[in-house]
């Protein structure tokens, strides 16, 4: 068993949705075998697109939450770029209601601005009252410095609230479809420069200092952004950051296939950026691994690269990629990896019932990880409604064997209970 307090050999006894006892030789009425596996707090994903309401042919709250449970997650944060977006309490309430009967806890991020248009503030207080703690216009950057300043200021009146930025300056990135560099130049595809991300991260660190507000950088992808976050943290600013598995696994060279399954915003970057993300994960600069799970219906990715929408699946491959790309090569220890996948993101989102520690009285949100199983990614066998995984045919190591949500085994031996 591994949680934030350390590692030990133990059984976990659960009753009424809570951990009752942790220790050797415990017995229960029904038992889940975890021999040779790691028991950890359930994984927490700060960044998931569930597409409902508005785009249910790509994903629904139910199918996305099921994919999350199969990936070992017990809590996910639904991004607000639905149609309509999470800028209205009725929309957020409907998302939460659907999430409440799904296989994973679904939290709803609220919009920063009305319609994610980057101008007027969304009703953050009303959304906060429904439970939203992360506010973001994700998919769109809050480009106007003045709007970002007021959002950060306003959020300081909501304890635990954090402003999460999709850091890509649209005046530099718009019209681009992949990382700007050697490959974009060769392929004749307009690029999204790394500095589109860096200038916003630099600016928002300054605005965090000006306002005393909390800022979280979504899907950090550049060496420059990692360095800016590192120096902001060194100055004591309330800054956190997440990185997505594709940004520590894949580079822009993948785009040479012209297969839009490799199209994502921010884009797959250079090998130098990938290396910097790994260092940022290892040295604590980056606080969380978040999937940016972005389902798209098959036909929308059967277009030329420049005409396809950005985004890739992530929920069912995140844990295995973390183990395969980071733990196995020794970039991270297993406890460090689980911190990035569970208790550190839980702390950012203020999810007291998730991320452990696994101790008597705590909510029984757990996952049991088989570190030794290897499996091949087959898009047809993923639970998501969509098929846009960039890892087709890859062999990965490690998988969630069981997932337990408030004491209920929702995934047992890799099979969802429904």
């Amino acid at each position, binding site marked *: 068993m591994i949680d934030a307090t350390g590692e030990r050999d133990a059984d976990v006894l659960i009753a009424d949705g809570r951990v009752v006892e942790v220790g050797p030789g415990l017995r229960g009425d029904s038992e889940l075998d975890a021999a040779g596996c790691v028991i950890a707090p359930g994984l927490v994903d700060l960044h998931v697109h569930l597409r409902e309401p508005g785009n249910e042919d790509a994903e629904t709250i139910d199918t996305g939450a099921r994919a999350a449970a199969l990936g070992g997650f017990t809590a996910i944060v639904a991004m607000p770029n639905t149609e309509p977006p999470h800028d209205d309490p009725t929309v957020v309430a409907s998302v939460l209601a659907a999430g409440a009967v799904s296989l994973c806890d679904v939290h709803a991020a609220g919009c920063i601005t009305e319609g994610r248009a980057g101008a007027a503030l969304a009703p953050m207080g009303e959304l906060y009252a429904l439970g939203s703690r992360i506010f973001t216009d994700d998919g769109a950057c809050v480009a106007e410095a003045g709007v970002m300043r007021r959002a950060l200021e306003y959020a300081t009146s909501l304890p635990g609230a954090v402003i999460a930025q999709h850091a890509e300056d649209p005046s530099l990135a718009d019209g681009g479809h992949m990382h*700007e*560099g*050697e490959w*974009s*130049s*060769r*392929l*004749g*595809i*307009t*690029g999204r*420069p790394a500095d589109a991300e860096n200038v916003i991260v630099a600016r928002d660190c300054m605005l965090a200092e000006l306002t005393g507000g909390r800022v979280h950088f979504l899907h950090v992808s550049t060496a420059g952004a990692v360095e800016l976050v590192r120096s902001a943290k060194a100055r004591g600013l309330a800054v956190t950051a997440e990185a997505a598995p594709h940004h520590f696994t894949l580079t822009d060279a993948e785009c040479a*296939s*012209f*297969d839009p399954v490799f199209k994502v915003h921010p884009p797959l970057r250079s090998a130098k950026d990938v290396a910097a993300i790994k260092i940022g994960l290892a040295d604590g600069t980056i606080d969380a691994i978040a999937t940016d799970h972005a389902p798209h219906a098959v*036909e929308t990715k*059967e*277009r*030329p*690269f*420049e*005409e396809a929408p950005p985004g890739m699946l992530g929920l069912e491959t995140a844990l295995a990629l973390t183990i395969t790309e980071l733990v196995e090569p020794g970039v991270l220890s297993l406890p460090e990896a689980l911190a990035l996948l569970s208790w550190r993101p839980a702390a950012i989102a203020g999810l007291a019932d998730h991320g452990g520690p696994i101790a008597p009285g705590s909510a029984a949100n757990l996952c049991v990880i088989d570190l030794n199983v290897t499996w091949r990614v087959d898009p047809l066998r993923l639970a998501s409604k969509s098929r846009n995984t960039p890892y087709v045919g890859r062999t990965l190591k490690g998988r969630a064997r069981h997932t337990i949500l408030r004491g209920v085994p929702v995934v047992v031996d890799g099979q969802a209970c429904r």
Partner: protein
Amino acid sequence: MKNLLSITDLDRDDLETMLSLSEDFLHVTERDIPKVPALQGKVVVSLFYEDSTRTRISFETAAKRLSCDVMSFSVGSSSVNKGEGLRDTVQTIAAMGVDAVVVRHSAAGAPNRVASWIDASIINAGDGSHEHPTQALLDLLTLRRKRGSDLSGLRVAIVGDIVHSRVARSLVLGLDAVGAHTTLVAPPTLLPDSLEGWPVDVTHDLDSLLPELDVLYLLRIQRERQSASRLPSLREYTARWGLTVERASRLKPDTLVMHPGPMNRGVEIAAEVAEGPASLIKEQVTNGVAVRMAVLYTLLGSGGTVA
């Protein structure tokens, strides 16, 4: 070889073979009846998602001179206007039984996608800002007809909107394969963001280069670039990078002037220069038909000799 998606699908030997074959077909096109039965019964579809005059007519002429049956697909009068996607469109065409599809598309890599969906041979007739391999072939054929089959050491400048140019991306690689020396000349705002791996020199100064050049290859300046704050004005472009009559007078007497068309006369090239004795612009078009015959013959032919 099944497809021609990029000029890099041809190695140096393939390139020489293709150019020699193109010369053979050029002789065919000079006959009284410029038609051979080499590909009788083969079906070629031209699938153009973007407006084109010369490339489309050139391919269709080439196919007809090889006795192919040619079907022409225009986006404007097709099911694309009813919302049909690229994959469905090409699979529908493929289901009718076609041997080759000539694809022109505004998006880079569209022919690569098409090639992954259907079995027919795919020929890239220009994809976004990516490549235009048959243009590079016809340019090399044109140079070869003027300078002989050894083009090594030839000093070539490609001038203009490099960043958006599929012609430049193919031609740079083609010129490198035959041993020519290429310099890209453009305002910094019209150069690719990275030239790592490109076998070229780069300058912003056309004037200093003029006396040394064997070939001056001009690219069209697209008017919409001005609005994207890449150029102050077309007038300023002409003043700094246009091939004016005055600049043309500073070229060596035997410097060749080329342009893939369509031209903006008075912007990147003065009308007098385009019509002048150094200009190969009309030959380029003529050679285009022979090159496309060679490409179709190579992809679809049974390997026999040219009739």
